[in-house]
């Protein structure tokens, strides 16, 4: 298991941390989107636990932070950042399909990115059950999510709480993505 830092994005303005498993990466890779600060993926220790656990299950993980809402150039910039992250994870060989986990106010942007990028096979929006059937701007309804996952714990240090939450996320991926092929469905 190894973790390295990487920069990407249209202006190389994003910083991501990639955790690779000891062996070959298995699909899907995990992309964790948190809300800034942009130089780091965010203060939550839970995402470190999640990346490490994913690695132990053979999945690569890229975690990064998008700019806080007030700092975003436009409403689309968060979605573009997420698409950039997916592209970068692909370039790094993390995997050929992705499960995206979003924390904070970027849930809608993640869903839009999932529709735009055909490689997204699952979306986790912990603690956002209201978004499980999200209506997109064009009227379609996206059924993609994980309403049963609890919200991201505010664990700033490593702890059993963070580890247990990470275990629930990996379990959800195992049972909802790996076995069913895709968790993203677009209906009307």
């Amino acid at each position, binding site marked *: 298991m190894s973790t390295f830092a990487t*920069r990407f994005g249209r202006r190389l303005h994003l910083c991501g941390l990639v955790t690779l498993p000891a062996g070959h990466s298995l699909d899907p890779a995990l992309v964790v989107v948190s809300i800034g600060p942009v130089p*780091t993926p965010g203060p939550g*220790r839970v995402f470190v636990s999640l990346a490490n656990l994913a690695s132990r299950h053979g999945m690569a993980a890229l975690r990064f932070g998008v700019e806080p809402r007030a700092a975003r150039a436009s409403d689309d910039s968060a979605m573009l950042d997420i698409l950039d992250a997916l592209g970068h994870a692909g370039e790094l060989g993390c995997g050929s399909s992705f499960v995206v986990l979003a924390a904070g106010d970027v849930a809608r942007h993640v869903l839009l990115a999932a529709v735009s990028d055909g490689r997204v096979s699952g979306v986790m929006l912990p603690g956002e059950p209201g978004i499980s059937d999200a209506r997109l701007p064009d009227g379609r309804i996206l059924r993609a999510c994980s309403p049963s996952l609890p919200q991201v714990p505010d664990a*700033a240090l*490593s702890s059993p*709480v963070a580890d247990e939450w990470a275990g629930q996320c990996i379990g959800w991926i195992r049972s909802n993505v790996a076995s069913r092929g895709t968790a993203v469905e677009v209906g009307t």
Partner: protein
Amino acid sequence: MNPFFFGDSKAPLFGVYLAPRVAVARDSAVVICPATAPDYARSVDAMHALAQAIADAGHHVLCFDYHATGSSAGEIGPGQLLRWLRNVDTAIREAAALSGATRLSVLGIRLGGLLAATAVSTINAPIHRLVLLDAVVSGKEYVRWIRNLRPKYFWPLTRYRVSAWQLSPFGYPPDLVSSLCYLDLRSEWQQFALVRSRFVCAGRSADQALLEEHLGRKLVRKAAASAAGDFSWESRLAANMQLPANCVIGPVLAALEEGS
């Protein structure tokens, strides 16, 4: 901005290095010792804005996360405080090597200030200036405050069958808590570090009063009044408030560059 890992390869520290703006580059590097939970999340945006402002003013800057916090590797465990103090030393050495600067300064935020002062006092690093931003003065008082934070405010932890300390909002193990209680900026052995220290007070906290009582009001440099008026580190209700960066940039830069 260059994110990277450094230090012990078994438990590397995560750092972000910011090169100085070329036009005003100085022979100076600043290591930023961040706050820890629960203050970390409230100050991390301001910390990075500060880091950028300091780099724009011509200083090399290194921000880093302590062992087992933020994006650095490791798990919280025995001897944690000693690890954190060593991390400060490691970061200072890394900044010196990265920048080649001969004038090294440390900016410590909240508990990071107390850790930085302690580390500088114990390792006798050749520090030019120590700037303490809303530094925690008494580790004992800080621990008391953390203990009073209600877990339910942050995360419903009660369903977990784990040790009591793991149910605390931030999972400080007992030996870390007890060792933190021994740290105090007012202790005699800290005076070596305090001689080279400058203080910036932005948010309201009990630490500010302790500091003024110990050093005298004149020695405590006040930041912009707007920050002191509406920001308190100790309000439970203010846990989602952010330390406003714009009002501390000026005083922090002035403290760093005083006499240069």
